[in-house]
């Protein structure tokens, strides 16, 4: 558990915080429309002074109603996926695990595609896609959990295998829905959704993902000791006094809820939940007390930067952010991996 830090921890977190602020402001200033810097700060000033949106100029709107909510969503989703990744990797003790390993994203995709292509769940109104995605995600995790448990004992390999099997079936279902509707207008929308995008962010809905990620973080962080024990083998964990079965169940529920909500808001953004925990481990080591905040901050910064790229790379059009996270994050991760002598 002892880890030689590259940088002293307080400096590291000071640096990460600075990065967080920098990327936040960069995200407000950069985008496909060129907004003068004065207007970017002007709108913050106006908001602080209690301006009404009706008095806002076009540039104010671009910053206030588009860029700020989506930056906050990016921070939240990045941090959320990263901490879920940490918890899941501790749970299944497998470096390949990510937040979607229990089928959350494939379940959510079926829900979203059903709405987008087949017009199901219309009683949800404007929340149909998010609602159906969330439902699909939860139903899938519950199914995987039931398949994996045996007299209330969860075996990790059964969990992983049933997760993979259920995911495969659901992906096939999504493909089927897409194949049955060639040329249908919704296909592009569905594809965008599956690759993930933050462009739907709106102020009046932001509280939900922010609250879920904040609460989830608090829970995970206060149980950092149990997480540290969980990565050892089950017998050791039990001998150290951890009620391992119930802790596993709680972790599964908490991570499923966080991932379900995030996927409903931003689609299934890949890479972040898998790679950020490893990056953080390379930098700060495996102690969850430090690993969790470091992952959260790294994830948040990374996601904001990826979203800036998604907006800028093919401007005036927009890329799904999932493409950016994988293409930009992959090489960086490989570089980091080659430089260090990191072994999980």
């Amino acid at each position, binding site marked *: 558990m002892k880890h030689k830090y590259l940088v002293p921890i307080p400096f590291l977190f000071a640096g990460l915080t600075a990065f967080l602020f920098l990327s936040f402001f960069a995200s407000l200033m950069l*985008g*496909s*429309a060129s907004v003068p810097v004065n207007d970017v700060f002007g709108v913050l000033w106006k908001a602080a002074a*209690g301006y*009404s*949106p*009706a008095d806002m100029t*076009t*540039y104010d*709107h*671009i910053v206030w*109603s*588009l*860029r700020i909510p989506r930056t906050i969503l990016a921070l939240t989703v990045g941090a959320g996926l990263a901490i879920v990744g940490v918890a899941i990797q501790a749970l299944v003790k497998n470096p390949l695990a990510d937040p979607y390993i229990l089928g959350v994203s494939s379940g959510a995709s079926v829900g979203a595609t059903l709405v987008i292509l087949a017009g199901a769940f219309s009683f949800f109104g*404007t929340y149909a896609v998010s609602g159906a995605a969330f439902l699909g995600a939860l139903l899938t995790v519950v199914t995987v959990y039931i398949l994996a448990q045996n007299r209330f004992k969860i075996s990790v390999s059964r969990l992983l295998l049933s997760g993979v099997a259920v995911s495969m079936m659901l992906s096939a279902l999504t493909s089927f829905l897409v*194949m049955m*509707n*060639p*040329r*249908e*207008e*919704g296909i*592009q*929308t569905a594809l*965008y959704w599956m690759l993930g*995008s933050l*462009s*739907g962010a*709106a*102020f*009046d809905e932001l*509280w939900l993902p922010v609250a879920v990620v904040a609460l989830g973080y608090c829970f995970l962080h206060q149980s950092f000791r149990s997480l540290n024990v969980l990565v050892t083998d089950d017998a050791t964990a039990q001998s150290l006094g951890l009620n391992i079965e119930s802790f596993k169940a709680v972790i599964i529920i908490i991570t499923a809820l966080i991932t379900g909500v995030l996927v409903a808001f931003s689609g299934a953004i890949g890479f972040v939940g898998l790679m950020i925990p490893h990056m953080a481990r390379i930098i700060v080591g495996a102690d969850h007390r430090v690993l969790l905040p470091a992952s959260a901050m790294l994830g948040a910064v990374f996601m904001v930067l990826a979203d800036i790229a998604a*907006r800028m790379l093919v*401007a*005036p*059009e*927009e890329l*799904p952010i999932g493409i950016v996270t994988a293409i930009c994050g992959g090489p960086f991760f490989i570089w980091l991996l080659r430089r260090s002598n990191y072994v999980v």
Partner: protein
Amino acid sequence: MKKMIVILSLLFLAACQVESKETTASDSEEIKVENQDEEIILKNAPERAISLNQHVTEIMLALGLEDRMVGTAYLDDAIHPDFKDAYEKVPVLAEQYPSQENILAEEPDFIYGGWESAFQNEAAGSRKELEQFGIASYLHESSNKKNPQLEDIFQDIENIGKIFQEEDAAETLINEMQSKVQEIKKNIPDTEKKEVFVYDSGDSAPLTAGQNFLNTLIEIGGAENIFGDLNKGWATVSWEEVAEADPDEIIIIDYGDTSVEDKKTFLNNHSVMKELKAVKEEDFTVIPLSEASEGIRAPEALEKIVDGIY
């Protein structure tokens, strides 16, 4: 934050009520148009419109509205030659859909979307959201329903005419299209109904037209689409079914990277398709994708279909 939004929206509502009283007192010249089961109410005709997708851009230009457009985007192929000059006056915002930021930066007051995807988050954003920014929007209804008819296009043109207070231009355009269609219909001989197969793309299985606008045009042209009973717009079918139907005519849709020549070569070499009478006799009709859309090109597409079949 939530509290502030509530207060702000209350203030906004109050402001609106005062305004609406004033207008009813002076004169009630509001523009009202029904679109997708919702009523669009405008005080003034739009002056800064943006059109997304080719077929609705062409409708705007055919109504002579280019001076009231601040942007356009997403052509499928070249703009109709009649409107090339008008088109060049309008700034092109993006090859495909521009992002919401770019659209807002043009300060539009009206957005005319051809397909529902024009209002997805990665494009203009939802119509509800646009409304919050004070931007009215219209979704081309005939492109977003099953089995659209010519009348549905006319209804859309009429609505756009109303919105821009150019009702006369809209009526002229509709009459023109209608008389062209009548003219073409005269050329349809009174023989047995010919059977038509629409080939869009695909090699292991063909993508064809079900009940979309092309199917409507084929029916108006006095022929029958062999997959016209499929209850969806476009569908992937099997070569077996095509062979069984043995159509009299094949309509090839021209778009994208695969050229018409490639598609013809493919049909001529396909082990089953090359035995069909339509392929043997080279009974091919080529329709560009932009003509198969629900827009002003409908009479031209119809003419090609009728000429091709008879």
